């Protein structure tokens, strides 16, 4: 994974640098000076790292957690993060915070319902009291609520 991650990253950086250089060609000198100064060495370094990664046969030192368990848990964590983002966009921060915390505690944390409800309510109260009431930060209603006319 060590080398694969490095290969993915360096390939992405190489593509980004190449795209950056090609895009910069059509700009006036003032705008393209710095992209060229940075982009050319960046592309060279990225290619060097790709070659290093492809030639490197060393393996990652063993970790405490088996690789398949680690992969599964990483995907679960990523899933929760994306689900929270989707909830924020669809329901808005006000509702998403309470719903997410409650569901995470019950499903992922295997906590009791009552405890989860109290903890979610406390987190929501902290969020609402601090960011909404005290600091007056603008949190829009979610798209779904706006669509239903509650926004």
């Amino acid at each position, binding site marked *: *994974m*060590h*080398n694969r*991650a*490095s290969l*993915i*990253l*360096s390939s992405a*950086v190489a593509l*980004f*640098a190449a795209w*950056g250089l090609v*895009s*910069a060609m059509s*700009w*006036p000198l*003032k*705008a393209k*000076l*710095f*992209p060229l*100064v*940075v982009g050319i*060495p*960046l592309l060279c*370094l*990225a290619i*060097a*790292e790709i070659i*290093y990664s492809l030639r490197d046969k060393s393996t990652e030192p063993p970790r405490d*957690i088996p690789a398949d368990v*680690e992969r599964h*848990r*990483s995907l*679960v*964590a*990523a899933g*929760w*993060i*994306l689900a*929270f*983002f989707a909830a*924020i*966009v669809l329901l808005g*921060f006000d509702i998403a*915070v309470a719903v*997410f*915390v409650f569901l*995470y*505690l019950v499903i*992922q*944390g*295997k*906590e009791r319902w009552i405890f989860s409800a109290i903890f979610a309510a406390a*987190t929501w109260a902290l969020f609402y009291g601090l*960011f909404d009431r005290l*600091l007056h*930060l*603008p*949190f829009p209603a979610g798209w779904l609520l706006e669509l239903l006319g509650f926004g």
Partner: protein
Amino acid sequence: MLDAFLQGLLLVLQWKALAFMLFGVALGFWVGLLPGLGGATTLALMLPFVYTMQPAEAFAFLLGMHSVVTTTGDITSILFGVPGEATTAAIILDGHAMAKKGQAGRALGAALTASLIGALIGAAALALAIPVVRPLVLTFGSPELFMLAIVGLAFIASLSAQGARGMVRGFLAGGLGLMLAMIGQDPQAGVARYTGDSLYLSQGLDLVPVLVGLFAIPEIIELVVRGTSIAGGLPSQRVSSGALEGVKDAFRHIGLTLRCSLIGTFIGIMPGLGGSVAQWLAYGHASQSAKTPAEREGFGKGDVRGVLGPGAACNSKEGGALIPTIAFGVPGSTAMAILLGAFFLLGLVPGPDMLSQHLALTFSMVWTIVIANVVTVAVCFLLLNRLAALTTVRVSLLVPVVLVLVFVGSYTANSQYADIVVTLVFGVVGWLMVRAGWARAPLVLGLVLGKIAENYLYISVDRYAAAWLGRPVVVVLLVCAVAVIAYPAIQGWRAKRAARA
């Protein structure tokens, strides 16, 4: 001079000014703890309230608030791996690594002590440097400031990992940061660069969502994967003990703490470089202080020197940044630009008047920085055990709360969903970087320095053509950059030779 110095203290100790300062400190304390909500934003929010205040009260309030934000920002960074402030990201590398090893108390003790020392050095610099700093600032033109940015980048990139490949990765990350800094409208020709016709990207990438994604998302995934508390299931008394050890660490490495304080002050004085640069330069210097390559490998894995350096620099830069603001009306950072607004709101003009007619008021600012930091550090030490015990909270409770803070903190940068998308994208980048063994520090420094460096490079080329490369300070800084890159290689070669012998 001494009279004005004491008068400044009396101004701050007047009950109204003191009360405003303590209120500001309390506000700054919480702002620092909350990720995303920056000290500069809060300063801007509080600016309208100073209209009715006397100048000494207004500066006690604003400076009291601003000067403690980074101190408490360090706490969030160390305990949760989420940058409490954009200026407290560097301390995560070793501070959070220490928290994960059950040394949260020691890391906090070290960070708070270094912060206090840094703040005192910054305040002393402000008090001493005002009459003599003018020639220094005037020596540094655009070419020198550009080279300073390059030295900073060389510093951090060369120290990120061992060997030739580590160096390649360090510069790769730094270069990526520089490229990312170019996203947005170019300041010289007005061309929209790498925006993909997105209105959000035309303003460039905001630092807060990038930092939160880069550091916090991989940390949350790691927490879920490990399935244990931050301190890895260590008993709470072990976590919170060691604060005194952290205090001792600051004095054990007092040379480093003082040097990093001076770095912070110096960067603070230089207009346009900003606080985010100071912490990374100090971190780079701290890792440079490692005597052997093996010792250097410990950086990023919980070396207390990686906490002391950024901790000291972050707070000392405030005193430094006030110097050009007060003396020349040239703000050293965004926060100082907002503070400059307060000067005009109160009918004061920065410049020679502040060093003669209003000298007592100027010294009252020095005293505010000192008193506010002493109060904050004392309160933090009182709460230290409770704060450190947070690292033993079980993961199922911690993850949802930290995620709420991450998303809210990221969203408040520009109040757009795109901020969260940026956080998620950089979360993936950060996770891949951790897995690939790439250092994240150079990327952040590249992003911070990119716009500044481009601006200074353009002015240098436009104003001096190639002649800027021959300016004495530029040459000295260029030699420094080369030495910084060559030093790890020489160190490695020496170690090999010693091993062979």
